[in-house]
Each structure stands twice: as C-alpha cells, then as structure tokens.
C-alpha cells in the first residue's frame, strides 16, 4: 500500500527541508489532493504550499462566462458543458439558474458525448463550452475532427482553452511571492512533456517536479524539490509522464488549435496563452456561427479569487471564506469549482489546517 511510504517521506522532508521554502502547485487536482490528505499539517514548518492558477474553470474570466450564458440563452442552442461549470457565478446568473429558467444546458462527461448529442438531435445547434488546459484540449481537438468526419454540422466549440507555461512566466514576472519551486501538473504534462517548463529553471532559476496525485506522489515531488542542488525540471510521476509527452496529442492540438490571446482571472490578458480553432477549422468555431453579445461584466463584489489564483492570498484569509462564500452559496468560482482552491480548503477544513 503506497500510503505506507508517507511517514518515511515526511521524516525525510523534516530532516532535509530548510526554512522559508514556498512551493506552488498549478493544477486543480493537486490542490484537492493536498487538502484532502491534510499535507499542510504534516509538512515541516519551513515548507509552505501555495496554490496557483491551476483550475481551468476558476481562471475563466467573467466576460467569457457571460458569453457562455449568452449562448445558452439562445433558443436554438443546446449548451453542452463539463459539469464543473454549471454552478459558477457569472455577472448576473449561473448556467444552473438559466437551465431552471428554460435554457437547454446539458452536462457531458466527454466532448464526444456532445458530438453524439448533435448527431442525435440535428435540429439543435450544439455548442460545446471548451474549458481546460492541455489535458483536455487535445481531446476537444479529436472531438472536432470526429464531428467533421461524421458530417455532424450542428456541432461547434466555444474554445476557452488555455495553456500552462505562459501563466507561470507571468506569475514569476509579477514577483509577488518568492517561489522556491513548482509542483508541476501531472496530467497536463502527460500531454506536453517537460520541455515547455525548462525556461523556469534556465531563465528564472526556479525548479519544478512533475508530480502524481496520490499523497505519497506529492510528498515525493516535494522531497525531489528540496533535494535539488540547482534548479531543474524533473519528473516524479514516471509511470505516466515521459519527457517528450504524448506526441499524438500534441499534434492534434497543434492541428486543430492555434495560439490566441486569453484573459485569465487574476492575471489579465496573456498573449498566446489561449487556444482558438485554427484557420482550417474555423467552421467548427462557435464565434463564426453566432455573434455573441454581452453587457459590461460585473465582478463578484468582495471576491478575491484573482489574488487566490496568483497565490498571494490563502483562501482561508479571504474575508468571505466560509461566511458569505461557501460551496453551497458561492461568490466566486474558486469556491464552487471541483478543483478550486477555496473549495478544497473549505471541504477539507478539518484536516487542512483551517481554523
């Protein structure tokens, strides 16, 4: 049982860690895993874990959320989405509220389900809200190709996809918190490989370890980080991640998508950090089929999700945490997304060191 390694890993960390080490994870699944296992309570005092912009739903801007709602409101549109988006507050509403008011919002597990849906209901215009990083984008790319291969014309993707390396550069350029190293995303890295992170070490002298998701995986990655004598990019999650990544997935992403500018909650517009459907695939882009008009976005009042996403505010220190903002009645996305930092700290507050 791999959890038997945990006490040994903890004592090695206690022996070897210096003071003032700040490690940032940038993957919502890591955020949840760390809170669920109560790792913060087990680590030596010299190590602080902070969460970065690793939750794709949380980093989606309010304006983009409003665009999804605008589409869902169109009577001819079936809005297909991952379940995670349904309860996220946009300027004035949520997809759940829209659905209750009559909008055709369908939760899908896979973008392929949305293609099948479109094929089964040819009178509907199926719009898939494409949210996710490099783990998900190749899958959406494959679904786009599948829709075209099958001649399913009533399927399109609103691509809100974003890529991981550039926000890390933006964070380091901001320099708001000293970061000793990164716990790098596990499944994004299955696709991307590790070359895209090399700049962290070579340009910023910050190391990183690609970690798996079990508690012992995260602890092992922390030990690898602590042991680095020079900043390097390493793979801890060796059973799933290769240095070159998944070349088929990379090629799919590069064929169907092209880099675009993306607006990140908390970080603003980062040029080239988004993915838009490439020229030959514009036919499958929702923006080519519908003019999407929105009013001026309204940011949730008092919401500090932006600072949480940059790792400068611990969720528990947000004035709204646990009082005005809870998973059942959220103010911002970080509390309602299944990978949100605030949701993780709240859900596991008994073990995660939240007073």
């Amino acid at each position, binding site marked *: 049982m791999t959890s038997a390694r945990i006490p040994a890993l903890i004592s090695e960390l206690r022996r070897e860690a210096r003071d003032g080490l700040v490690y940032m994870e940038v993957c919502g699944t890591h955020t949840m895993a760390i809170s669920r296992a109560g790792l913060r309570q087990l680590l030596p005092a010299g190590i602080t874990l902070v969460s970065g912009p690793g939750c794709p739903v949380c980093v989606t801007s309010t304006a983009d959320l409003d665009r999804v709602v605008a589409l869902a409101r169109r009577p001819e549109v079936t809005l297909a989405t991952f379940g995670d988006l349904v309860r996220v507050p946009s300027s004035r509403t949520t997809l759940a509220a829209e659905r209750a008011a009559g909008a055709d919002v369908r939760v899908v597990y*896979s*973008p392929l389900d949305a293609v099948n849906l479109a094929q089964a209901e040819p009178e509907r215009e199926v719009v898939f809200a494409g949210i996710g990083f490099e783990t998900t984008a190749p899958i959406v790319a494959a679904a786009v190709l599948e829709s075209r291969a099958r001649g399913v014309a009533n399927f399109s993707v609103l691509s809100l996809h974003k890529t991981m390396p550039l926000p890390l550069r933006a964070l380091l350029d901001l320099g708001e918190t000293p970061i000793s190293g990164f716990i790098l995303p596990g499944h994004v890295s299955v696709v991307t490989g590790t070359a895209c992170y090399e700049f962290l070490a070579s340009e910023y002298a910050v190391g990183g370890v690609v970690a798996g998701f079990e508690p012992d995986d995260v602890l092992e990655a922390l030990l690898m980080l602590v042991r680095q004598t020079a900043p390097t990019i390493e793979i801890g999650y060796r059973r799933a991640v290769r240095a070159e990544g998944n070349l088929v997935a990379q090629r799919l992403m590069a064929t169907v998508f092209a880099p675009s500018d993306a607006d990140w909650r908390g970080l603003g517009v980062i040029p080239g950090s988004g993915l838009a459907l490439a020229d030959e695939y514009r036919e499958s882009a929702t923006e080519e089929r519908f003019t999407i008009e929105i009013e001026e976005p309204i940011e949730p009042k008092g919401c500090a999700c932006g600072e949480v996403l940059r790792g400068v505010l611990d969720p528990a220190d947000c004035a709204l945490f646990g009082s005005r903002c809870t998973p059942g009645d959220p103010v911002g996305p970080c509390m309602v997304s299944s990978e949100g930092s605030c949701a993780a700290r709240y859900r596991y507050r008994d073990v995660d060191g939240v007073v």
Partner: protein
Amino acid sequence: MCLAIPMRITAIDGALATIVAEGLEQHASLALVPEAAVGDHVLVHAGYAITVLDAEEAEERMKLFAELGEFEAGQRDGLD
C-alpha cells in the same frame, strides 16, 4: 478537470476501446494513444485514453482508487 482514471483495455473496436476497472465497464477513444493494445492499462480522461501506464503500478493504483470510491467520483459530472 485533470482527473484521469487508470483502467484496463479489454477489447478494441477501431479507435474505441472497452475499458474496465473494479467491475465498472465503459468505453474510451484511443485517438490519442493509437499504439495501445488489449491488456494495456491506460489513463482515461473525459472519454479518451491519454497515455499507456506501466502495468504493475497501474494495478496497484486501481486498487487504491477502488478503495477510495474514486471511480464513482470520476464518473460524476462535477458539482451539479
């Protein structure tokens, strides 16, 4: 969104695999791992296999997932 579940391929029909884990059977596309074969363990995310896993480690992880009830979690559509 990054949640990916280790599962074992029991059958392949074109690009579609039948995958199983602890009695749960479903289908996944092999579009991203065309080299995958029957008997391989793969990580499955949003209806697609994203990589082939080392067999021994995968079996161990699958047992862990089953104990934690993570398979149900992986099938859930998220908070809704």
